[in-house]
């Protein structure tokens, strides 16, 4: 039937013949195929994302808890040297805490006085345990001479072993936790003296050589300062530049040259901005290395093109009819832009700016160039003091093979992702909040 079907326009049944039906079927088949490709692509993307998230979360979730050991400590006055009747803080601070704690461990653990056990004993508690005890005593000197029951932070090795992150069934010499230490762990577990609890160090401490004491607080504060600098500089500058270029600048060679260069700048690898920050801000202007101010300046340069491009696109999308309406009533250009175009473009501008900031928050390369990947054990107290940032802190930890840092790397990534999601949610919220229909 198909071969005899005439294809002339004048034929009746051009749209109802068998050939037409076949054409129709082919069109639908093509449509179905296209939809299938789309779904396959989305499924693949979601699958990869799920694998990525699963790896990060499964490696990192344990970092949000740490292991604590409950011990009864006899605060032996013999470990202090008091002169007067009331102990001064210096005297309390200078106590022999190492001795206090090892006696407590010996008292609490079986076989603790076996030959060679001293080394294993020292590896049980974190260095922070001494500080914990000292602070408790400083807060309440009356405890001296008494028996105090307290939870002490375990060392990283014990922490990892207890959380099951390091395997037990390998030869002892290839483990960081000895057989004796495992026996103690089992004993403490039976006694209910070892347990995990929320790892507040992760959110209150800066970096440390000891994984169990290392936290993200320094990096969070550093990133906050960075974002402050970037937001304060790049949003007004970027939006201002976009308004000028889009609405006021004459269209000539110079402005089109500037436009091309802004578009090119958006594609420049971020490490170049780091190099520029190093060469200009640190070497020429003499600003301090590793300071959030310098990092913020470098990131500002990187973020500006993004914000300018997004803001211009947003301004351009405002229908000309609104501009004409304003002009037609005798509004000046300035009034037209600031009364009508800018308010309508604002959701888009805000979204673009926040996306730009989010990009800057996750940027690592420029920070490495200006030394924000240094080992810094305290949170910065100003824009000028040395600091790390979230991505560079993750970078530092990722360099370390210790299991405690491996899980903290993943935890850091989760925290960073959390901040990014928060920023994007803000962008969506602002867009919904300020969006107006016409």
């Amino acid at each position, binding site marked *: 039937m198909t071969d005899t079907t005439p294809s002339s326009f004048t034929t009746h049944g051009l749209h109802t013949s068998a050939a037409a039906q076949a054409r129709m079927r082919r069109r639908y088949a093509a449509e179905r195929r296209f939809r299938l490709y789309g779904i396959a692509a989305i499924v693949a993307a979601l699958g990869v994302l799920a694998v990525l998230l699963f790896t990060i979360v499964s490696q990192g979730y344990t970092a949000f808890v740490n292991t604590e050991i409950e011990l009864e400590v006899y605060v032996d006055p013999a470990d202090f040297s008091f002169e007067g009747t009331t102990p001064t803080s210096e005297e309390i601070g200078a106590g022999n805490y190492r001795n206090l704690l090892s006696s407590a461990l010996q008292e609490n653990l079986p076989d603790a006085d076996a030959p060679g056990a001293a080394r294993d004993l020292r590896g049980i508690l974190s260095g922070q345990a001494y500080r914990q005890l000292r602070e408790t005593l400083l807060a309440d000197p009356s405890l001296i001479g008494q028996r105090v029951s307290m939870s002490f932070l375990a060392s990283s090795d014990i922490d990892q072993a207890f959380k099951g992150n390091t395997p037990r069934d390998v030869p002892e010499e290839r483990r960081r936790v000895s057989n004796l230490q495992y026996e103690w762990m089992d004993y403490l577990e039976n006694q209910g003296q070892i347990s995990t609890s929320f790892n507040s160090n992760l959110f209150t401490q800066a970096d440390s050589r000891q994984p169990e004491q290392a936290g993200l607080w320094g990096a969070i504060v550093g990133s906050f300062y960075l974002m402050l600098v970037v937001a304060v500089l790049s949003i007004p500058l970027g939006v201002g530049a976009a308004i000028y270029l889009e609405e006021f600048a004459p*269209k000539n060679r110079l402005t089109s040259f500037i436009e091309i260069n802004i578009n090119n700048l958006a594609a420049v690898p971020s490490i170049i901005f780091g190099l520029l920050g190093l060469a200009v801000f640190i070497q020429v202007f003499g600003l301090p290395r590793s300071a959030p101010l310098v990092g913020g300046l470098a990131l500002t340069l990187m973020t500006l093109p993004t914000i300018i491009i997004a803001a211009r696109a947003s301004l351009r999308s405002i*229908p000309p*009819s*609104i*501009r*004409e*309406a*304003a*002009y*037609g*009533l*005798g*509004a*000046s250009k300035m*009034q037209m832009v600031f*009364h*009508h175009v800018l308010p*309508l473009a604002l959701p888009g501008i805000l979204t673009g700016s926040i996306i730009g900031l989010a990009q800057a928050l996750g940027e690592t390369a420029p920070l490495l160039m200006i030394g924000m990947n240094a080992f810094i054990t305290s949170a910065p107290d100003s824009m000028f003091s040395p600091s790390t940032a979230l991505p560079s802190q993750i970078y530092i930890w990722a360099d370390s093979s210790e299991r405690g840092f491996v899980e903290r790397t993943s935890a850091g990534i989760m925290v960073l992702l959390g901040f990014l999601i928060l920023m994007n949610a803000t962008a969506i919220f602002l867009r919904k909040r300020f969006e*107006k*229909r*016409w």
Partner: protein
Amino acid sequence: MNYETKTAEKLMAAENIGETKMQARDVRVSYGDTEALHGVNLDVRHNEVLALIGPSGCGKSTFLRCLNRMNDTIDICRISGEITLDGQNIYDRSIDPVQLRARVGMVFQKPNPFPKSIFDNVAYGPRIHGFTRDKEELRQIVETSLRRAGLWKEVHDRLDEPGTGLSGGQQQRLCIARAIAVNPEVILMDEPCSALDPIATALIEELIDEIKQSYTIVIVTHNMQQAARVSRRTAFFHLGNLVEVGETEQIFTNPGDQRTQDYITGRFG
């Protein structure tokens, strides 16, 4: 100057129909390299309704937009010749186009209310020109303008709702009210009814009839009946030239040019 006295002056000036309000001499407009208007000479008289008709693309909108320098906002647009308002060349250096557009208002083909409340739409002009002393006076102007545009009854109880939420015909009347609120001397209308149904169109035509006492109106239309109904004089454009202009009745019953004859009888366009 006070809003009411200005309107009153205008009403008095209504007796001077026949005096030239705007005058175009040898107006040539080109977009880039193509010339869209090839030397147009046309007078707009005081308090008349002048209709511009002609086939699509003949330059009606282009001419209209020259009258309030709206073409200035198009980069590639070049204008030569002379257009005067009350004897003063509006393309003169001393004339501020922003001020000019307050004197020569415009209503566009597609209703384009601001995405603001109905009140703010109408109040926008008076606000930026700053000729109201207080809130009450502003409210008064908004009410007067909406009444004149025949919209007051429909919207008086929802002035703070968005202007974009009105129907197409209501939006267009809102745009007219918005233009009136600035109290211009001339109102330019570019096919104000092309997006409207016959009832809304009739309302707008009534409205034009109403307000022509106090304003000079230039209206572009594709609707011959509309031109015949609302205008006192009609100008016929063809391919960038003004072919003829005369009393509306004469143009429609006894045109002087064959092209006009062909157009109004529907032979082209």
